[in-house]
């Protein structure tokens, strides 16, 4: 354990197993309490945006129509892979009510440079190519032409009147297909980067790299049980309920104003600036409320297009995608092909772990195979590990991030083979994982050593949970368990606090509020200031009105923007000590602050009273803080799931589901539980029914919410949550982040449960009724 010299480290160091703290928190932490007492952090105030959300007054992008607006529509490719011979827009342009048409020719040529697209870098040319197809279409749904018209109906009719002459090309829909030597190459200028070096031949394999620890050959040699299997997962979509939308106004003074639904207003600003070759200072992005993102609202699709249409027409242009547009035109997550080999000695010690992951990036490189490779064995401390990763382009929409991007596919494979090895060794699956689990100091295959982490505590919580030992009852039932890891990220955040003379504080921030972060950020400022969460009034503002703030993603917002709020609040406290000192004729160092009360020599004044005297003590009180935190704390999550399998139909019912996650510190436990439940439900959908069902021609056959089957409320039990708090020593309140790790274990846990319920191991997602029935039928045939 690390030296406990600071309060932060102490919180971590004393985070040993114990239930309940006796503190005044209004919830019972399930496990391993972060031991510091807080007044606001850890309580459940009503969210600041609650009234607007429940009354329907919150303004989303589709609600906004500026005076004089035109409406846009996009013509998308009907083909998975084709060369564009010609585009004839004349009929569309001649239609009454049509004001402008744009194609890739209206975009400035892409310079050969890298661009930051929110959570990583990519080639600007790829961003360009995805916004409007240039020369080739690379997937069904690829945007080709956009139209602005008097209303949306005319725009859609005009888009249909555009004639595109295609030369059809063979398409590759999966990584193994696209990697085959005879596969049609998507990009003539894409050369495989092999172990960091560029090779000479164009290929669909954008990159191949490998991480190793020790010697897996040795490890397998020492193993008494070795299991190896190959797994595939289908492409799935994030499934946010609100389609992408934008309104853009390119003003006559050259300033561009964009209103949209995004996880990162500054990403929209910066990417749009690069694509259109205009200074970032010429663009203002106003983020409207967001109806879900899950990583899929980080990429820029419509914004530059609407901007170009607005520049051509001099009027605001509004564009709203249909659900079909969202499915075929926006980022799904990678389908995958993963081989995993695990070896362990008879005493249950892991000796070697080996994996090869090939992920479908979609039309442009960037499949999130790297985080998949980093996470695949992260829960395990093993001396011999080897992981190969392949980033492969295929004729599907370009991948976007999706909640712990890359990790669920990896865990679906690894956690099944781990389970199989435990089963063959006759060791309890949780006990086996505990025996081998990562701890502080364990080295991950990609290099870093873990700092204080809660893998063991999460697994102990599973073991101690009443669900784990409850009787299953009934026929054809099974219980499964799996664990997953996600890094979380820090990136950059800004926050400004303005103290009002009535004692309230306006909090200005730039993080899109997806999961209740206005409140979780405000609570951290309130904690420092010693006032209530309700006395902080948080607002998410446009890019002109707050310092740079990275995307809401990587489970970073409560962690990093909360940290900026914490730091700004510290500055306010310092200023308030100085103001109190002025009242009493002493220096700030003589004034003490505790829980919102400033005192010196027996005199004291509360925050509210002191705020009222701002004008007399030197004027407005305001502070800004910016952060780029390094102390990111990774999060482990595990699930216990009970299923019942109808052997005659292959239908899997989820009977009971418990999600366990180390969140560091639950700032607002209700929203933490909500994140854990939401991630679990998305994982269940991924596990059981969700998939892009592709026809032989490479087109998606189920691009509606009727046939793309996300779970409904009737398909789910109540998701039970178990919050584990192993404080992150790298954050003032011990926060790790909660948004992502929870989606990683569900598919694997359900697969392990199906194995026990029906005796079959499913090696492909989704584990839909036909797939489960076929596996059961095949096993019976073999048994007969």
């Amino acid at each position, binding site marked *: 354990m690390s030296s406990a010299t600071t309060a932060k480290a102490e919180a971590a160091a004393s985070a040993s197993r114990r239930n309940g703290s006796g503190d005044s928190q209004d919830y019972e932490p399930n496990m391993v309490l972060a031991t510091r007492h807080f007044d606001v952090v850890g309580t459940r105030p009503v969210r600041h945006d609650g009234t607007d959300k429940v009354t329907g007054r919150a303004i989303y992008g589709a609600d906004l129509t500026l005076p004089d607006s035109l409406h846009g529509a996009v013509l998308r490719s009907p083909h998975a892979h084709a060369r564009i011979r010609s585009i004839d827009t004349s009929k569309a342009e001649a239609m009454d*009510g049509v004001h402008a048409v744009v194609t890739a020719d209206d975009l400035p040529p892409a310079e050969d440079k890298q661009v930051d697209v929110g959570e990583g870098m990519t080639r600007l040319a790829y961003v360009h190519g995805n916004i409007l197809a240039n020369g080739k279409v690379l997937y069904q749904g690829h945007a080709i032409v956009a139209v602005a018209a008097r*209303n949306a*109906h*005319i725009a859609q*009719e005009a888009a249909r009147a555009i004639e595109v002459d295609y030369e059809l090309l063979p398409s590759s829909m999966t990584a193994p297909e696209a990697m085959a030597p005879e596969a049609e190459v998507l990009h003539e200028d894409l050369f495989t980067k092999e172990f960091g070096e560029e090779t000479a031949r164009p290929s669909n394999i954008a990159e191949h790299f490998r991480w190793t620890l020790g010697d897996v050959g040795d490890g397998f040699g020492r193993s008494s049980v070795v299991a190896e299997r190959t797994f595939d997962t289908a492409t799935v979509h994030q499934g946010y309920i609100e389609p992408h939308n934008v309104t853009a106004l390119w003003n006559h003074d050259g300033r561009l104003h964009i209103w949209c639904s995004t996880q990162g207003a500054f990403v929209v600003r910066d990417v749009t600036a690069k694509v259109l070759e205009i200074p970032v200072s010429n663009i203002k992005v106003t983020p409207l409320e967001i109806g879900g993102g899950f990583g899929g609202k980080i990429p820029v699709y419509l914004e530059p297009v609407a901007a170009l249409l607005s520049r051509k027409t001099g009027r605001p242009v509004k564009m709203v995608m249909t659900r079909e547009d969202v499915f075929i035109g926006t980022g799904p997550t990678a389908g995958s092909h993963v081989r995993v080999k695990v070896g362990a000695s008879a005493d249950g010690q892991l000796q070697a772990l080996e994996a090869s992951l090939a992920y479908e990036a979609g039309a442009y490189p960037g499949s999130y195979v790297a985080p998949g490779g980093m996470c695949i064995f992260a829960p395990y401390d093993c001396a011999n590990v080897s992981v190969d990763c392949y980033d492969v382009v295929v004729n599907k929409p370009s991948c976007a991030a999706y909640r712990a991007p890359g990790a669920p596919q990896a865990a679906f494979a690894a956690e099944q083979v781990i389970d199989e090895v435990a089963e063959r060794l006759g060791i309890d699956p949780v006990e086996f994982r505990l025996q081998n689990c990562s701890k502080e100091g364990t080295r991950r295959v990609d290099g870093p050593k873990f700092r204080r982490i809660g893998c063991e505590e999460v697994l102990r919580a599973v073991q101690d949970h009443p669900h784990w030992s409850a009787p299953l009852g009934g026929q054809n039932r099974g219980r499964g368990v799996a664990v997953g890891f996600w890094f979380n990220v820090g990136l950059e955040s800004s926050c400004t606090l303005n103290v009002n003379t009535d004692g309230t504080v306006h909090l200005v921030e730039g993080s899109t509020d997806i999961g209740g972060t206005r409140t979780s950020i405000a609570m951290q400022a309130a904690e420092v200031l010693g006032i209530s969460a309700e006395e902080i009034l948080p607002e998410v503002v446009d890019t002109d009105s707050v310092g740079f703030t990275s995307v809401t993603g990587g489970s970073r917002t409560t962690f990093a923007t909360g940290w900026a709020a914490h730091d700004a609040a510290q500055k306010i406290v310092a200023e308030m000590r100085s103001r109190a000192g002025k009242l009493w004729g002493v220096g700030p160092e003589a004034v003490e602050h505790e829980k919102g009360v400033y005192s010196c020599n027996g005199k004291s004044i509360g925050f509210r009273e002191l705020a009222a005297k701002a004008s007399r003590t030197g004027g407005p009180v305001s502070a800004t803080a910016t952060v780029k935190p390094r102390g990111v704390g990774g999060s482990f999550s595990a699930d216990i799931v009970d299923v019942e399998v109808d052997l*005659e*139909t*292959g*239908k899997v019912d989820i009977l009971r589901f418990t999600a366990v996650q180390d969140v560091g510190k639950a700032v607002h436990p209700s929203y933490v539980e909500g994140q854990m439940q939401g991630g679990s439900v998305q994982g269940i959908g991924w596990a*059981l*029914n969700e998939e892009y*069902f592709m026809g032989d021609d490479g087109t998606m*056959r*189920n691009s509606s919410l*009727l*046939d793309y*089957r996300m*779970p*409904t409320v*009737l*398909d789910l039990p109540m998701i039970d949550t178990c919050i584990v708090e192993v404080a992150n020593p790298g954050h003032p309140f011990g926060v790790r982040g909660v948004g992502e790790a929870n989606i990683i274990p569900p598919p694997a846990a359900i697969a392990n449960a199906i194995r026990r319920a029906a005796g079959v191991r499913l090696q492909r997602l989704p584990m*839909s*009724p*036909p797939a489960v*029935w*076929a596996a059961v*039928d095949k096993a019976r045939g073999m048994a007969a």
Partner: protein
Amino acid sequence: MHWIDYLRPRTLDECLDAFAEHGEAARALAGGTDLLVQMREGRRSNAVVIDVKAVEECNQLSYDDSEGLTLGAAVPCYRIYGDEAVRRHYPGLIDSVSMIGGTQIQGRASVGGNLCNASPSADAVPALIALRATCLIASSEGWRNVPVEDFCTGPGQTVLRPSEVLLALLLPPPEPGSGACYLRFIPRNEMDIAVAGAGVSVRLSGGRFADARVALAAVAPTPLLVREAGEVLKGRPVDRNALGLAGEAARAAARPISDMRGTAEYRSNLCAVLTRRALETAVQRAGGDLG
């Protein structure tokens, strides 16, 4: 822009005149839960929409012990499952109308619309076939009556002529010792389209099947009446063996395709499973005992 004429006749005569005048350009609108979606998605573009909801004959819902049930073509599902007489006499119909769409959809969707949409996977149709329902069809030329199993001629295709409209479905009164059931399989538990469905009815007498009908959804271009499955049951003792034989007859009669909702092989399997399971419930409802 594409414009649509919307007509809302108040009487049957007005309604029949409207269909006579507009013929193939017209499409009847009841709840609109299929039609409006299809028009919005560009799958259907009728120049004239004739709303039949104000026509009294399309809104009848009446039961009579000797005549049976008259079910107006535009009567929404919620009225059907809210009707005491229908609940008592036609539980097999209740099965299907309470699973079409979700609660909100059931406030508008009608059995007549479900039939006229002629989807192979329509949930109400196998139940109607099993219950020996017939279609009352009218035009300004006159009336005719068609058994439900003969109404659909292909996906989206029916026997309706351009000037005709479906007014009502007529269900004979249930005979003593009879029971019916509709079961479908969907991967989720609601808001889904049948991968396969089975509507069955039985009449039991002296521990044997006196009569039986089995109809399937989503395994052929139209809802399918499987006469062989009924025949195999007739005269047999009421036991699980008989149900299994009927299930196998259903499996043999199915002509499914493979698509995003399931493979042909899987659907054939479902026909056997669903037929057997639906028959179990129908037998129970008929007061029978499978032991």
